[in-house]
């Protein structure tokens, strides 16, 4: 067992967990933050993307103990004071989601894109999101959402 201490969505948390506990499992099972999803177990689909110290990572292939002491932001921590983050609002406006399963990871990944590059082209958005699989939308409205958010962020 290992004691893992993190700052998750602005709150300090500390839990004793088995050494091999993945960050995705830590968030979902130990903190009940079930907005972070697991879709593939092999780091391909991106449903599990969260931010660690401001950068997007795949939490299904990260050990919780490996990010000890880090600041973690999950989809639950994105809206502030009851107001959707511009990326969340943009996904809603452009119908960038259907079943909602890939959405948390997609949104977290897209937020990191705009932190990295302010006004990405369509092609740059599509290439950045290559690590996030969506089976419902055909990606077009997700690209539109990122472009819409870029005008607000």
């Amino acid at each position, binding site marked *: 067992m290992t004691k893992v201490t993190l700052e998750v969505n602005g709150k300090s948390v500390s839990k004793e967990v*088995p050494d091999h506990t993945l960050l995705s499992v830590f968030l*979902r*099972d130990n903190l009940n*933050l*079930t*907005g*972070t*999803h*697991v*879709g*593939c*177990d*092999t780091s*391909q*689909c991106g*449903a599990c993307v969260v931010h660690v110290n401001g950068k997007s990572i795949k939490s299904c292939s990260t050990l919780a103990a490996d990010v000890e002491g880090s600041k973690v932001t*999950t*989809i*639950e921590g*994105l*809206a502030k004071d009851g107001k*959707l983050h511009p990326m*969340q609002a943009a*996904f*809603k*406006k452009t*119908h960038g*989601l*259907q*079943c*909602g*399963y*890939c*959405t*948390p990871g997609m*949104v977290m990944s897209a937020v990191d894109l705009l932190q990295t590059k302010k006004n990405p082209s*369509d*092609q740059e*958005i*599509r*290439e950045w*999101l*290559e690590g*996030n*699989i*969506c*089976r*419902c*939308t*055909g*990606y*077009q*409205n*997700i*690209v539109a959402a990122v472009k819409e958010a870029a005008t607000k962020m």
Partner: protein
Amino acid sequence: MASLVGSRVERKEDTRFLQGKGRYTADINIANQTYAVFVRSPHARAKIKSVDTSKALKSSGVVSVLTGKEIAEDKIGGLIAGWAIRSEDGSEMKVPGNPPLAKDVANFVGEPIAVVFAETLDEAKEGAEKVKVDYKVLKAVVDPADAMKSEAIHDGVDKNLCYDWLLGDRKAVDEAFSKADKIIKVDLINNRLVPNAMEPRACVVDYNTASEEITLYTTSQNPHLSRLVMSAFGNVAPENKLRVVAPDVGGGFGSKINVYNEEIVCSWASKKIERPIKWVAERTESFLTDTHGRDHITHAELAVTKDGKFLGFKNETIANLGAYARVFATVTPTYLFGPCATGVYVIPAAYSNVKAVYTNTAPVDAYRGAGRPEATYTIERLVEKAALELGMDKTEIRMKNFPTQFPFKQTLVHTVDSGDYVAGLEKAKQMADYAGFEARRKKSEANGKLRGIGVSSYFEACGIAPSAAVMSLGCGVGLWESAEVRFNPTGQISVFTGAHSHGQSHDTTFAQIAADELGVPMENIDVVHGDTDKGTFGMGTYGSRSLTVGGIAIVNACKKIIAKGKRVAAKMLEVNEDEIEFKDGEFVALKSNKKKTIGEVAFACYLPGQRDEMKSPIPEGDEPGLIESSFYDPPNFSFPAGSHICEVEIDPDTGNVKVEKYTAVDDFGRIVNPNIVEGQVHGGLAQGIGQALHENTQYDETGQLMTASYMDYTMPRADNFPDFNLGFTCTHATSNPLGVKGCGEAGAIASPPTVMNAVIDALGGQEISMPATAEKVWRACKAMKKSKAKAA
């Protein structure tokens, strides 16, 4: 009041999904739950000589281990095929038993043999490792082309043949073919796909020892149907003691129609071990055991005159059912396929022959489009080839054979109520700048690239479906849908539907429809679905049926609310009922212009009796309350149609195919929410283009699945697509009061032939199979170069 139907309303469900507040099955935990891990066959075909659970039972944290022996002793039934299909010779189809846990023989890799329940997931996994199964490995039947010549894998299923089905008239077809100037022939493989909903299957079961009720939370497209099957065929519990909840479900695409082994086993076991149970599939388990889609081998022929008129059509198809026949498995390659195989054309004679075979692979069932993509691929490859061989323009040959009169009596089964196929193709040509293609081809050529254009026109029979029709074709149930509209005393409305949303946006579109019917803001309306304890029995969501069947049930229930409201309002306003008009949420007495809002009327319905000003307006013969329901059975299928045009550019040095332009013009009848309809088309196109260019399910010769993770199975990604160019022609359906036709499957139906026609056009007519991967295309480019050099 402006109509909500037709407007781009933002989705109600997004606020929760976007904040991580969706509640999917794997998000549910129940105090004191155990974790289930299944022991699965590593062999495609093997005799199970013995199962030794003794070591597993002693493993740390293991609560129980159950096998096929115990489930058979408890007479828990197996999985079922929902449609009875007869062979051409009149004999009934052959369906083997499919026990929830295999006892004597395993028939595909991943088939569950035993299950371990433990205090933690890690302990359950460890326990499962310790279950010792002694197998006698048998030679597996893997290739459907060989299945009929191979040893029978199921007792009583000679030649591994489920049925040899025929629709149409062989003699008429022979006659038509004898008059043809030319016979166009194709040999096609419709590649096997894995639906791959992003949410892996899961179930959580809670058994209440006091009430003896089982609550099953599960990833289902049709919770009511699941309960019926588990109760009537599975013998898991009587329906009144079994509650099935499908909460938020992360995509289905057909794969979550079926009741699966794991749901039956965990429900049965929860009662047995008197503990809640949680099971969540890993992605590889999903690949191995979710129902797959397509997997046809087809030879088809089209008889044509020299000026491009179609005289006759026939196809001979082998459809792979996998190891067992599941709910829609037997109808998908027959009545969902054959009737659509003559496409949008007037073809005087046709037949469709399908031999469905069993193999030692995962069961194959409905996947987005279910039969209709296979049908459209067949006819649209033939038509495109006919244009090439006759030297005709590919749009001209289609126009020439479109029906111009509606209703259109299609060759084999359907009478299509409405449509305008010419307008659709004309619009697509214009939007795609079809006329400018040759210039773009030359430009690509100058850059060393090969450019191709492909067309396909499709129709589909969906809105599944009129009960009388489907039951006569072998369906085990009627395919109506239910709705209940509950007007609460204080004015909020709950709309219960038997349909289920797993991405389709019912919370929004159904609220739009009800808001228009009742004249109330849609914020006052909650759409409730997915729980057999809430609302009436319903058939669920598949076959683009939610709006065309479920939506109409909502309209009809709303109409009953208005009818009762009129009676009540008449009494409140002291006029005759026929002097009341309902408009924009108000009941108006025509002569006096006095009015009551629907909210006031609803409130009054809950207050029989009289006190001061307030007096009951409930007419004699009416009961208190304002709740109405409807069971709607459609009079016909609905028939979306359209024409798609695709342009691809191929790099002959790498074989890479780039989709440069994709234009889709669809006729879905009246559109309730354009955002949502466009989203459905985008998603369908991505799956169809995925089939054409990227996705393939590969078993090796021993029946091992080689593509069992996202590292091996190519899922389409964001950078595989351009922006799609969508257009609509909206001829309203005449078969339902909303005029709607359904839009969920069209993209996946139309796009595989459109893309392949473009690829084959770029390759100068050289045929290649789906998926047109870089390697295949590169080889084709090399062959092309060689033959050109030879000719020179």
